[in-house]
């Protein structure tokens, strides 16, 4: 799938822009400078407007993502269920701080509440949701990915 193909599926109406950017992000992992230019052309906007918009949203990367991205819900509900402990475990596992982006392989991110409070705390590894995570199980889950 090329960027052009993704775009031709969509009408060049402004309300399709966010969807197009998400689709590109899904396909290529991020919205590259080339993609920004193509989006700008397609939606008849300035590249700066496109970048300004896409860089606003959490679900769109403007840089190539790490090969392993671990997101942990740190909403108040999960926090009461000790999500902080889980974050510590993960940080310890990789020897990496949450939010650091210098490691091209792994990235640990806090995630705003996903509304999965009933089954919290939740941790998402490369898109797969793990529910009711216990600190003791973190290593076991992560070992499946490294």
């Amino acid at each position: 799938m090329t960027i052009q193909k993704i775009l031709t599926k969509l009408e060049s109406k402004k309300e399709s822009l966010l969807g197009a950017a998400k689709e590109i992000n899904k396909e290529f992992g991020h919205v590259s400078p080339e993609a920004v230019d193509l989006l700008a052309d397609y939606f008849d906007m300035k590249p700066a407007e496109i970048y300004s918009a896409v860089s606003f949203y959490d679900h769109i990367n403007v840089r190539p993502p790490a090969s392993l991205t671990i997101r942990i819900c740190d909403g108040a509900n999960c926090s009461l269920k000790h999500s902080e402990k889980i974050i510590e475990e993960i940080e310890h596992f990789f020897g990496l701080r949450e939010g650091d982006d210098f490691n091209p392989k792994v990235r640990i991110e806090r995630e705003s509440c996903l509304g999965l409070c009933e089954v919290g705390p939740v941790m998402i590894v490369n898109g797969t949701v793990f529910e009711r995570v216990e600190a003791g199980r973190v290593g076991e889950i992560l070992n499946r990915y490294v």
Partner: protein
Amino acid sequence: MQIKIDGTIYDFEKGETILDVCRRNKIKIPTLCYHNDLLPAEGVCRLCLVKTDKHNGLTTSCNTKATDMMEVITNDEDIEKARTYNLELLWADHAGKCATCKRNGNCELQDLAEDFKIDIKDFVPNVEQFEKEEQLKILKDSLKNRITDDGNPSIFRDNQYCIECRRCIKACKQIQTIGEYGMNHRSIKTSVGTACEEPMDCILCGQCTVYCPTAAIVENDETDKLERFLSSKDKMKIFQVAPSVRFTFGEEFGYEPGTNVEKKIATALRKLGADYVFDTSFSADLTIMEEANELIERIRAHLSGDKEIKLPMFTSCCPSWVLYVEKFWPQYLDHLSSAKSPMGMLGAMLKTHFADKKKVNRQSIASISIMPCTAKKFEAQRKELGRDGMQDTDLVITTRELARYLKKRNIGFKELEDGEFDQSLGMYSGAGVIFGSTGGVMEAALRTAYESLTCDELPKLDFKGVRGMDGIREAEITIPKGKCNLKPIKLKVAVANEIRNAKKILESLEKGECDYHFVEVMACPGGCLGGGGQPIPTNAEIRKKRMVAIYKRDKDSPIRKSHENPAIKKIYEEFLKKPGGEMSEKYLHTYFTDRSKKK
């Protein structure tokens, strides 16, 4: 209609904001994101907060319309608190950067911090109380998002000074329609930037540097290079000063806008070590000779049915306008006059005719231009504006940079005695000096073209129709038969300033609805007098004062037509022979390049 502000009743007109009424009546309200050239105001800095009887709590005065019988309080404990705390928050990000800052002493944030006695301790962690690791993390956090951009010769950006007021974004988008900047990312990482944080790729007009309240976007400062030139003993240092600079430079030293300080500039430059001080107004006259001639030839060819010759002819003195056509409308490159800009022409004369006359080696000439413009820095580097691997202009220094350098050298500008420019390439007509204003090139060209076409003396020198500040001004000039006995021509001309207006003309051309013969475009508001390298602040009132001074200088000139300037006559006799001739083509004309992305 009436509004009550702090107990006093004021009249106001429909559409005015609370801030408008306050400013008009000298009621002080601090602002950062507001600029009256860039309306409507965003209201993001939260400093202009006031209370009214129509709103709960605090509201922004910059974008709240005044309504009849509204009661406003502009200062009480809450308002003072709101302003102070928000300034403290901005200042916390800024603390300790002033000493080495380019805008030190002319920074809106710094001024407000002084007014409100902002204490830098607030919100900034107290170093002693932290563990080392934590300090490092804080440092890293604040540096992680720092972006600098020195990828072009004109403008330098460093977002550590950015206060996210968005004025640059608006200036770029609203005035110039370029839209080079956007607000990128979110929350604390929010900052102004280009698409994908790539180096700027715009028309380099520098309006963003003029509207930036801090030093996040500044002209590419080359005063170091200036110093190197000045201190090199084996260089012949030749300066040229652009027409508009003399009417604005004084503002940097406390003169009223529009004060003509050309004589002091001449002295200042000599004090710095200039061997010659020439005047770009002289070469503006030269540009008129060539451009008027080109216009006449184009019109003649066009009337005789030559389809290759394009009309309207566009002026090409403004480097941002030229870049705009090259980058966004390359199909109209043929419409640009091939005449070099005044800076380009004088540079070429210095390194050829003048060097030969003085029997100096071209290499040993340092050709330095004092310009109102950031894009001139780019123009000077165009390879077509040089010969034998050497540029005709070695360095372009903006009005602001020269002022900064004089201050650094402790040269008391106000106390300087009057001096004179060197006359050989420094004598200018009134037509040359009005180049500094929008409409000036047009008027100057019309004076010369008229007389050239009719062989008669122009009965009235002032072309009022092309003067003023309106975005686009049109005029129709009937050129009679005259002594030359040519067919009378109705010349349709237009003058545009700011790219948003030029764009309209290009769009009408695209639609085939443009029937002008000649169009002058200046990218900056008001033309060079509002240039991207000019003193800060700017606004319509200041630009008006500068403009009035320029036209007054023209009125007071003994010679007001380019072709009557004796120095011009002389250089054609001695060297160039005739406008549009072989020598002129070689030294005074240039070509343009398609720089569009889709090329």
